[in-house]
């Protein structure tokens, strides 16, 4: 009997996945809400604030998509996922998109059947140690005990890094960022490793952030971006171009301050006109109203504004733009043209 129950549950899950594979846009419109998978809480990227409202860099992407599709940035159901549950949640149709510091890798894209819709943060794995340990390079960590969040690319990079440098370590696998913090602060591990942005965000919440240092080594490439299921290209396009709209807007100088004025009538720059829907029919091609990008941009401004408001140098997280600057400023952000 147990077996049949299991197969029943598995079948229901498989059926749900099959049904949800097509027409996600229609599903979201019919539901009136976007189900967006985020972290269980990483300040700056996705965490509920004091009023219980989700805030953060990844949350802003969810809200932009919700605004473009449903004309309401608050029509989002945020589903907290762990490193372990996120892919199952997306594959089973529980969430429509995942915006959760997820690294774009070959096997996730090809083998797990997901569609990465772009990169919203170029990251790399780093190490954080207490300052009084006197360590200045990750290569001095021979024999150290390292706290890792399980179910991430992090533990594979870590194994590779220590093997390549022929030094040993002892891994302590931990389920969530909060538990990892607790163990790290209690001294149950010497080092905490995750994406450098995550380390900065975690350190910002410590009582005394200056007592901890992030080591200079970045041991991997971690392009983080939102993703959707394979098989629904219309929905994938929509998420991809919403992200591109945020990036292009910054490149073209469209900000929340001048958005209303620029969107009111066609201006001198045809690409801005196409982006904001005052010229051409790009919105129609996506199955959305012409001013979809205006709505998306109205939520938190362009990519640069979202970055500065959530994780930029003025925030406690204090991340510099670095690789995440526009290509015109020497960074890697380079959106395909809107035409």
């Amino acid at each position, binding site marked *: 009997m147990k*077996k*049949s129950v*299991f*197969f*029943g549950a*598995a*079948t229901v899950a*498989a*059926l749900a*996945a*099959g049904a949800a*594979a097509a027409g996600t846009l229609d599903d979201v419109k019919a539901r009136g809400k976007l189900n967006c998978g985020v972290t269980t809480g990483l300040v700056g990227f996705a965490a509920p604030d004091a009023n219980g409202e989700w805030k953060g860099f990844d949350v802003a992407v969810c809200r932009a998509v919700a605004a473009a599709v449903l004309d309401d940035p608050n029509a989002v159901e945020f589903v907290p996922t762990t*490193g*372990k549950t996120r*892919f*199952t949640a997306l594959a089973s149709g529980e969430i429509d998109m995942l915006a959760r510091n997820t690294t774009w890798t070959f*096997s*996730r894209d090809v*083998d*797990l*059947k997901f569609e990465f819709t772009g990169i919203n943060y170029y990251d790399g794995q780093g190490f954080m140690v207490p300052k009084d*340990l006197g360590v200045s390079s990750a290569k001095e*960590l*021979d*024999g*150290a*005990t390292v706290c890792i969040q*399980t*179910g991430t690319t992090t*533990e*594979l990079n*870590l*194994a*590779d890094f*220590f*093997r390549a440098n022929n030094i040993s*370590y*002892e*891994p*302590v*696998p*931990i*389920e969530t960022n909060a538990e990892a913090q*607790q*163990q790290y602060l*209690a*001294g*149950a*591990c*010497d080092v905490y490793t995750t994406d450098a942005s995550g380390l900065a965000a975690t350190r910002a919440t410590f009582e005394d952030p200056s007592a901890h240092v992030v080591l200079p080594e970045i041991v991997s490439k971690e392009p983080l971006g939102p993703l959707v299921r*394979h*098989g629904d290209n219309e929905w994938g396009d929509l998420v991809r171009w919403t992200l591109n709209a945020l990036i292009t807007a910054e490149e073209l100088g469209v900000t929340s301050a001048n958005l209303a004025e620029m969107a009111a009538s066609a201006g001198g720059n045809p690409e801005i006109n196409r982006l904001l829907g005052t010229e051409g029919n790009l919105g129609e091609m996506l199955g959305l109203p012409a001013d979809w990008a205006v709505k998306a941009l109205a939520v938190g401004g362009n990519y640069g504004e979202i970055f500065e408001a959530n994780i930029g140098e003025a925030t406690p997280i204090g991340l510099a733009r670095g690789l995440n600057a526009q290509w015109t400023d020497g960074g890697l952000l380079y959106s395909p043209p809107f035409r």
Partner: protein
Amino acid sequence: MTTMTDPPKESFQLSMLLNDTRYRSLTFQAIAAILLALSIWYLGNNLIQNLRAAGLNISYEFLGNPSGYDINQTLVEYDSQSTHARAALVGILNTLLVAFLACVTATVFGVIAGVLRLSKNWLVAKLMAVYVEIFRNIPVLIWIVIIFTIMIAVLPGPREFRGADPDASMFLGVAAFTNRGVYIPQPYFIRGFGGVADLLLVIAFLAGSFFAVRAVNARATRIQEATGERPQTLWTNLAIWFGPLIVLFLALGLTFDVPALKGFNFAGGIKIGGPLIALWFALSIYTGAFIAENVRAGIQAVSKGQTEAASALGLRPGRVMNLVVLPQALRVIIPPLISQYLNITKNSSLAIAVGYADITATLGGITLNQTGRAIECILLLMLFYLTASLLISAFMNVYNASIKLKER
């Protein structure tokens, strides 16, 4: 004269399958079995078809690929270049280790608490009642987390052992209690023949001593039966147990590898990891509370007349318990004890809460995540837990049969 006519020969008719009570139940059972089989086939087939439609075929090829991750407690050789199957094996051994340790200590805790709960000493009895009620009424996951949290908060980190005037020092200079685990000295032989050979040698010596002690005791019993006086055997037995072993250790050159602070951690000696200790202790103390109740029920099931009769023969209370009551109580205790052992094995899957690398954490956690083969991994996990539980159950049933009341 009587004439007998044969009863009319009953021929089987199809309608009898429904109308005849002799066949009706068979009919319905057959129908139910066919329906069940059909629905299982339908669901299974549906699953496979849907998975195929989604481009996901059931395949176990990933088990042969390198796992790419490291594990902190490995009973067999393992590194990040080993296969996923090897990582699963490491997990299985870790599960079995913690389950075995917890079964042993839970039984000890349970028997002691169960017996003491029936004590005439009011304070002791009430203390045990408090233990049982507190521990079995709070979920085991919470106990695991509480014990682990207390451990990492209270015990010193390895860093605090450093320096001229350290905050913490080693216990008797040989063992270190840190919030990452307990480090104890590891015995080894300077003139040994290699790990397994040495172990076999020690076991052979212990077996020899065991049989020698048995012979001495049998002789004492014979003398007691003949003369009524039992010769003193304690010192002879102690000498037989320890004498040859000490000679063996001296011959092989027994030494201890004492753990010492080196770099970030203690090196050398045996490390018993913090997660293992927390999980082991939490499972033992939680399940011990249930076993205590089983033991109490078993003891109370033995009729009071047995105790009184034993006392009338002049046995002291301790011997009444050990020789008369407990052997009879075992018949009641063992069957529910089996299910407690199964519970321990299954509850050990909560290990991931404290980062203990059991099978659920390796195969069902990291491997599942890195390969995305959820259905395959979960099926393997189910197979493992099912097999382990059935084996424990079979083993305990054999034991149960051996202590059952034998009617002659």
